[in-house]
């Protein structure tokens, strides 16, 4: 059992390091700044900001509008010179209409945060069954010998 969990843990950790997951963080406030002149550039078909962004559940997106006109992102209205917040409470893929992209669409991907607890649960879910299987395999590879009965001389 311990061997199974150990193997699952090693595989999980190596995979985690290789993928370089960015959701292994606590929820935080994420700022998106709309720079001055964005509306003019968007009118010319230029993209100033990223087309999408990733978040974890619990993040708060604060859109800071440094432009001279009001902007909109989905359900959020941001007057010129102000900031407006959007709380991301659900894991989902969103495509919000926005005024700061030539395509008028901004993508938000909200994922569950990958916490230590989640990772441990994953290791146990894989490791415990693996341990049982290893135990069964060991019975085949090294069958138990019947105990020799003591003989009375």
């Amino acid at each position, binding site marked *: 059992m311990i061997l199974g969990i150990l193997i699952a843990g090693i595989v999980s950790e190596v995979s985690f390091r290789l993928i370089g997951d960015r959701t292994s963080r606590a929820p935080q406030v994420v700022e998106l700044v709309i720079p001055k002149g964005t509306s003019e550039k968007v009118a010319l078909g230029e993209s100033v900001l990223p087309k999408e962004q990733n978040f974890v559940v619990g993040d708060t997106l*604060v859109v800071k509008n440094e432009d001279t006109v*009001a*902007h*909109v992102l*989905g*359900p*959020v*209205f*941001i*007057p*010129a*010179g*102000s*900031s*407006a*917040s*959007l709380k991301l409470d659900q894991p989902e893929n969103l495509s919000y*209409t926005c*005024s700061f992209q030539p395509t008028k669409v901004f993508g938000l991907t909200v994922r569950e945060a990958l916490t230590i607890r989640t990772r441990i649960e994953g290791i146990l879910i894989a490791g415990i069954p693996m341990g049982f299987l290893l135990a069964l395999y060991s019975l085949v590879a090294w069958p138990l010998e019947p105990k020799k009965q003591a003989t009375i001389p």
Partner: protein
Amino acid sequence: MQKKWLWYLLAGLALLGVVALYFFYAIKAKQTYHGSVITPPADAVDFSLTNQKNETTSLSDFRGKYILLFFGFTTCTDECPATMGVLMQVRDQLKDQADKVQVVLVTTDPARDTPQVIGEFLNRFDSTFVGLTGSPTDLQKVWKDYGVTVLDNGETHSTFVYLIDPEGKLRLTYPFDTRVEDYIADLKLLFKGN
């Protein structure tokens, strides 16, 4: 015997600490707005349009009250009556504090929403609601100032509700599916001066 009392004392202090923490976080949680907070509060652009009594009315006429501003049209079959219904319930549930709140509807369909039509529509919800219409040119400026998208002769439009404070500052915005209790919680926080 003394050790026993010491354990009781420690348990009591621990319980007190847990209760204090609970109330601290409960109170802190209640101080969070449900709507999208605008920081710093922005000046709500003033405008003058025609109300359902054919009178010229400006947004600034409602200074001193919290304004819930919505853009829609009277022949809408979904978001507009739904939002008016929610705002009606907000005022109903505020009871004696309802007079602090003014609901204003600005039309996105000036061709069909005459003052009389708007008045009949709003009377189905709350006779205190104010409906505004005007020329397409005047309305287009208002829509632009508030980031309202209006397409398909007004039938496709943004569905924000804007909360403007008694000093004429835009404080919060709400998406279409905001619950009555969320509006009320935010308004009560604002009434307390937060």
